[in-house]
């Protein structure tokens, strides 16, 4: 049985004073935002983190993280994030569950407005809103989402006990998900558009050794078949154009991410895919607004890089505050 009971720290922090002037407002409590929160708290800044769902961001659904230094036996995403939260709260950082609706400028300050029309006046903003999974590119996506199509193997794998499932993708997430799914599913087929996987070698070795996992190389999904629920996935071979149908009840997609940058669209500069452009100080095109982790134009989207970004952005933001108050 894999139960766990840990006390969420979010509830035990100091109260948020209304109308306070914040040194730093962090949007999103994933590894990047939480690291910035830890650094800011230790620097004695008056800092608040706003999170719309639950702390952790994408990494909270990761069953096992084996590439974050200091955990030789690996650690679950949930536990790693809970530790980061506790660490941030220990240094006085507030974390509140509110969704940001709007960012505006008021003289030298910014105003962050959340649901319920709450306003946070702040000297700096760190955007750590992360990214969401890319939707499965088939015409039937909307119809079958939640009816066999899933983007969270950790959440939904148990519903496919004894069934056949497909996973679309070939990166670390897809392979980790495939391995997790073998604990429940009868057979797991990995559908990947290339002839080889992008995932790291260690994961590849594990996946090739698993007798429950099959591969469909050079293939992309074209249609989802079914009446009410998913009954099959039609795939197309990108080389031969040949089509075939995999009889599956579940389709898990791990084919990259789209940045959650809507809140700053039209405010800071984005690249053509919507990721926030930053310099080496993690500054955006607007002085006083910084971006970290998966939402920015980074070459590598990992817990460790998000955390590193958080530290740099906090350092830059502190310097910005000093200059501003000189």
């Amino acid at each position, binding site marked *: 049985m894999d139960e766990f009971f840990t*006390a969420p720290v979010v509830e035990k922090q100091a109260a948020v004073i209304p109308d306070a002037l914040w040194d730093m407002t962090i949007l999103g409590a994933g590894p990047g935002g939480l690291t910035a929160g830890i650094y800011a708290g230790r620097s004695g800044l008056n800092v608040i983190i706003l999170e719309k769902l639950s702390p952790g961001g994408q990494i909270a659904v990761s069953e096992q993280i084996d590439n974050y230094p200091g955990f030789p036996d690996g650690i679950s995403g949930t536990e790693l994030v809970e530790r980061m939260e506790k660490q941030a709260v220990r240094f006085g950082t507030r974390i509140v569950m509110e969704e940001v609706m709007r960012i505006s400028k008021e003289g030298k300050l910014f105003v962050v407005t959340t649901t319920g029309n709450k306003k946070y006046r702040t000297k700096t903003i760190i955007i750590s809103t992360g990214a969401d999974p890319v939707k499965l590119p088939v015409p039937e996506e909307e119809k079958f989402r939640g009816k066999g199509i899933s983007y969270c193997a950790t959440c939904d794998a148990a519903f496919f006990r004894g069934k056949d499932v497909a996973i679309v993708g070939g990166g670390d997430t897809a392979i980790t998900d495939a391995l997790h799914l073998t604990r429940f599913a009868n057979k797991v087929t990995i559908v990947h558009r290339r002839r080889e996987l992008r995932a790291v070698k260690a994961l590849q070795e594990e996946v090739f050794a698993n007798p429950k996992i099959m591969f469909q190389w050079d293939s992309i999904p074209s249609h989802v078949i079914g009446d009410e629920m998913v009954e099959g996935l039609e795939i197309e071979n990108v080389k031969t154009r040949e089509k075939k149908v995999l009889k599956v009840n579940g389709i898990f997609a791990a084919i990259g991410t789209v940045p959650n940058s809507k809140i700053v669209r039209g405010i800071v500069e984005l690249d053509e895919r919507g990721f926030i452009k930053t310099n080496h100080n993690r500054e955006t095109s607007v002085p006083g607004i910084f971006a970290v982790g998966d939402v920015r134009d980074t070459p590598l989207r990992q817990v460790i890089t998000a955390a590193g970004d958080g530290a740099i952005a906090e350092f830059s933001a502190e310097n910005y505050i000093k200059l501003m108050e000189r």
Partner: protein
Amino acid sequence: MEKLLKEQDVQYIKELFDRDLVDPVELVLFLESEGSDKVTAANSQYLQHTEEIAKEVSEISDKIKLTVYKDDKEKEKEYGVKEISALFIQGKNSDRNVVFYGIPSGHEFSSLLEDIVNVSQGTTRLSPASKEAARNIKVPVEILVFITPTCPHCPGAVKTAHQLAMENKLIKAAMIEANEFPELSKKYNVYSVPKVVINEKVQFEGALPEDMFLNKVLSAVGESQE
């Protein structure tokens, strides 16, 4: 049985309860013995753990009282128990309408703690507009929230549903741990969590912000309201 809560977490929860609990809260837990039609291969292994965690949480503060009913059909009827285990959070703003079916473990443990605080304070964290809309509902509403303990987006849906129930006694809100109730999950075609079912007719998957969640509730009661 070995303690489920780590000593350090007990300390965290104690600080939270000492600071935030106001009025008494009663946890009412319903269990049944092996052999009952409500105890299956899927949920039997969790019953002992559910009782243990309820016990450990209630021991942290003298404002929390645990009452356990085992094989008590009459009490079950009084509370409208649908599945076993059923854990009701009873207090100032809840009366047999805030319930967890199955174990509140994993990410849902935070829902349990937040419910206890809300009920003890007799208030919720919903926005004033949501509170008013919830209070204005004049017909019975039943909200089922299917979850798995490993789902990080699920407590949002559970907490919203439970808080709506705390605002209006006509609203009954239940968390359902999908692994423990495969038949029920099958009946409602649960293949992705959170999945919310309102009055049997409005269904949606995913964690919605409070105002959109409320709109789904209002659309479910829409016709009968007029």
